[in-house]
């Protein structure tokens, strides 16, 4: 017997033994969760940590010493001194039997199934199932059904775990799915032609479907699960900051999937957020630093050193007030470096614009989770660091004053799609740090290629002032760099200070830049992020 966890005896804790491993777990824990803590994953379908437990898949039955029959580990609560066996002959044989039942009507079409490679039926049968099923009966054929939204239903693959039905009922609280018929004729269905069209979180049922019964139309046949790389990131499509994994193949984003964070989004994310990733795959990138001759028109490509020294010297010699148009996708590190650049020059300001929607879209079953009005990830981060929100609900306008600014104008990330080439013509120096070319800024004095948020690491601050980390999942163009790194170099040229190219340093510099970040550290960010201390000076809207 091995000591797994030696938590002291306590009223709040219960001691039990799972497969010879002694553990101490909180009172009220289910055997399934306790086993997980003891390092044993009990196979299951109907149980999902974010939903109620109907105990109907019967796969998680385990042997409990003293119990007359096998117990469903997903609903049986641990008791003091309990001895649980998930690996006994009885339990193993029962699982093998249940798995065989699952395959009676399953089409075994793994070669053409999107779930293949991340399928619980495939995995469990592979590890514990019979080599050959004994059923000789013809299989039930249901075919494919369009559930509406992004969801396709392959009834033949369904294991009737009803996670999808329960999600719609309990979490989104729009009961648009139901089991119809009974016995082995039972099937998941929508109500007549209503479908899932009205749902705004239905993409989650594709995530929680343990098999390939519910698949995404958008992802259909695009990639095999085992070819995908998963990178932890933050959803860029509103200010909620849902934790996601970006799934990429061959440096192309294939889909966004929610990543669990019980303090922010639980297991979920909205359909709006998950469907907007295509822009990350867009080509036509700025590939190298460029400068434009002062008489206009002729662009010259430069190497980074020439470009940075060229611009740095100009800034140093001319000085002047710096007005910055940031993007709401700019990371805290980008904005922090901008603030320091302004300090190094003769002062200035930062503004940003963001598209908004008129109403929030809450997820009723998970308190606090919603799609926010602002449709960009770092609104709060920008505000906290002193940037001013300008423009209208479409994320345009509001640049009247800056377009007439006569000193230095820096545009970071915003493509200024509502502006003409005349923008910034009054400015002594117009600089564009961007990932994609901008019509309005093609005559900027300096153009620098920067990474999108998906190509670099950094942090966003969500609507609840929670600072969360994202990591780079894509390779940007060879010459592209994170904006904060470019800005740090410029500061170093101007002030003669040392420039760090480390994202952790860039984050840690924030504590010197802004009071709200004082005392925070990059190492505190994992795994759930942290909340900024409240700043009474800040007004929220």
């Amino acid at each position, binding site marked *: 017997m091995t000591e797994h966890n030696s938590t002291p005896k306590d009223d709040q804790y219960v001691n039990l033994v799972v497969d010879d491993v002694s553990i101490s777990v909180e009172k009220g824990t289910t055997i399934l969760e306790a086993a997980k803590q003891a390092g044993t994953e009990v196979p299951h379908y109907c149980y999902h940590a974010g939903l109620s437990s109907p105990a109907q898949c019967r796969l998680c039955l385990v042997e409990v010493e003293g119990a007359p029959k096998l117990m469903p580990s997903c609903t049986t609560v641990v008791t003091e001194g309990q001895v649980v066996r998930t690996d006994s002959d009885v339990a193993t044989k029962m699982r093998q*039997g249940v798995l065989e039942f699952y395959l009676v009507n399953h089409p075994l079409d793994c070669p053409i199934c999107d779930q293949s490679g991340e399928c619980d039926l495939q995995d469990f049968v592979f590890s514990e199932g019979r080599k050959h099923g004994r059923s000789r009966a013809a299989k039930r054929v249901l075919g494919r059904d369009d559930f509406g939204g992004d969801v396709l239903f392959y009834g033949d693959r369904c294991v*009737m775990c009803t996670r999808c039905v329960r999600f719609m009922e309990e979490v989104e609280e729009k009961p648009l799915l139901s089991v119809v018929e009974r*016995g082995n004729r039972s099937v998941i269905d929508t109500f007549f032609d209503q479908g899932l069209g009205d749902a705004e979180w239905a993409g989650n049922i594709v995530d929680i479907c343990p098999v390939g019964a519910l698949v995404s139309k958008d992802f259909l046949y695009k990639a095999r699960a085992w070819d995908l790389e998963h990178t932890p990131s933050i959803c860029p499509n509103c200010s909620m900051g849902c934790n996601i994994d970006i799934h990429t193949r061959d440096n192309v984003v294939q889909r966004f999937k929610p990543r669990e964070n019980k303090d922010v989004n639980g297991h979920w994310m909205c359909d709006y957020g998950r469907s907007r990733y295509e822009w990350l795959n867009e080509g036509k990138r700025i590939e190298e630093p460029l400068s434009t001759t002062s008489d206009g028109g002729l662009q010259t490509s430069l190497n980074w050193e020439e470009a940075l020294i060229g611009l740095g010297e100009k800034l140093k010699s001319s000085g002047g007030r710096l007005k910055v148009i940031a993007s709401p996708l700019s990371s805290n590190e980008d904005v922090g470096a901008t603030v320091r650049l302004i300090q190094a020059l003769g002062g200035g300001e930062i503004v940003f614009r963001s598209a908004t929607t008129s109403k929030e879209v809450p997820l009723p079953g998970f308190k606090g989770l919603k799609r926010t009005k602002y449709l960009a990830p770092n609104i709060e981060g920008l505000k906290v660091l002193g940037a001013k929100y300008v423009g209208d609900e479409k994320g345009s306008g509001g640049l009247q004053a800056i377009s007439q600014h006569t000193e230095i104008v820096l545009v970071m990330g915003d493509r200024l799609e509502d502006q003409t080439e005349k923008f910034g013509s009054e400015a002594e120096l117009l600089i564009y740090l961007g990932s994609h070319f901008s019509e309005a800024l093609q005559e900027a004095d300096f153009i620098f290629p920067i990474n999108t948020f998906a190509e670099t690491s950094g942090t966003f601050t969500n609507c609840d002032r929670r600072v969360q980390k994202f990591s780079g999942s894509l390779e940007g163009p060879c010459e592209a760099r994170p904006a904060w790194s470019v800005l740090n170099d410029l500061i170093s040229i101007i002030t003669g200070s040392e420039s760090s190219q480390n994202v952790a340093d860039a984050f840690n510099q924030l504590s010197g830049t802004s009071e709200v970040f004082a005392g925070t550290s990059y190492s505190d960010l994992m795994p759930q992020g942290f909340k900024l201390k409240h700043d009474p000076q800040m007004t929220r809207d």
Partner: protein
Amino acid sequence: MGYPYSHPSEVSIISKHFGDPDARTLDGWMKNGGYDGLKKALSMSPEEVIEIVKNSGLRGRGGAGFPTGLKWSFMPKDSGKPHYLLCNADESEPGTFKDRELIRWTPHQLIEGCIIGAYAIGAEQVYIYCRGEFFEANQVLGKAVEDAYEAGILGENIFGSGSTIELTVHAGAGAYICGEETGLMNSLEGKRGEPRIKPPFPAAAGVFGLPTTINNVETLSVIPHIVREGSDWYRQWGTEKSPGTKLFCVSGHVERPGNYELPLGFPLRKLIEDVCGGIKDKKNLKAVIPGGSSVPILSKEQVESCLLSYEGVQEAGSMLGCASVIVMDENTDIVHQVTRMASFYAHESCGQCTPCREGTAWVTNILKKMEAGQGKEEDLETLIELTDQMTGTTICVLSDSVAAPVQSSIEHFRGEYQKLLNNGGGYD
């Protein structure tokens, strides 16, 4: 008095008025001592009523045989929550037709039992969940409830006692599984008729999530008599462990099928040969299902010594269940009978639990293939293994109900299966 036939061995308590149209009416029922039990109960404390029922040793007549008084005593005291009494009248077990007769002939007997039960457990609302296909029974019951309300027997201040008890008759919509107590609760709440996982047990969280007791029609029908006459009176019949009388629904190959009320512990053989007039057309007995289609089949040898009490039938190798005795003569095709039962359960499985959803259909499929001469030698072992997997692995016992007849029939009548296998061997 049995219906349609009667027999001198019977002890008629609840079936006394079967076939008597007069007893259906409130006046007729009153003339026969109706609602005297209720009046007596109302003069006692609820605890005293429970005590009488406990002492009588009455066991639930729905099939499981759980002591009724004990079940009532599980209801929380001073919970501050509304309590419910449910009457399970969703009689659908193949071979069972006792509750239908009780409702048809003696609706007031049931209503009286319901009111006493509700009084004992502190419920102000009773639901009688009546099988939808029982059109006549539903009508008769509906009328009786109406009359009882008019006479002040239901509603506020029953018989001037200050107690309020409402009663609603709810007709089911044709699913066998809604006769399972928690499936019934879901159905009553307007949800899919799917059994719930226990715990929580109904006494803690039943219908609408509130403390609930659920009793069978026959159980509640006998309550007025026990309360009126006392527990010792009831214990004069039956055995120590199975006191009282019970309705036996005899069907199949006997001369006089029907309902007979007999003391528990009555010999099965005597029931068939004496009470029911023997096997039809003087044929020989082959097998008997003693407690409804979901219990193990008894072979002729097992029938010989079987006594019809909860413990007696268990000793013989089966279960008393709801005492629905299905008699099969020597010409009966056992495999066909088992196939019919299995396909019934496959059709009625709610589909929640995998072993039941897939297993009942698969077992039926194998049996049908066998019947069609397409069975394979290994099918018999497969059947035994599958039904093993279906026993004790699900939320309710529907899948166990397929396993029992399949396994017992293979045990006793393996030859009949074997004959089908030797009959060609099939192809696939």
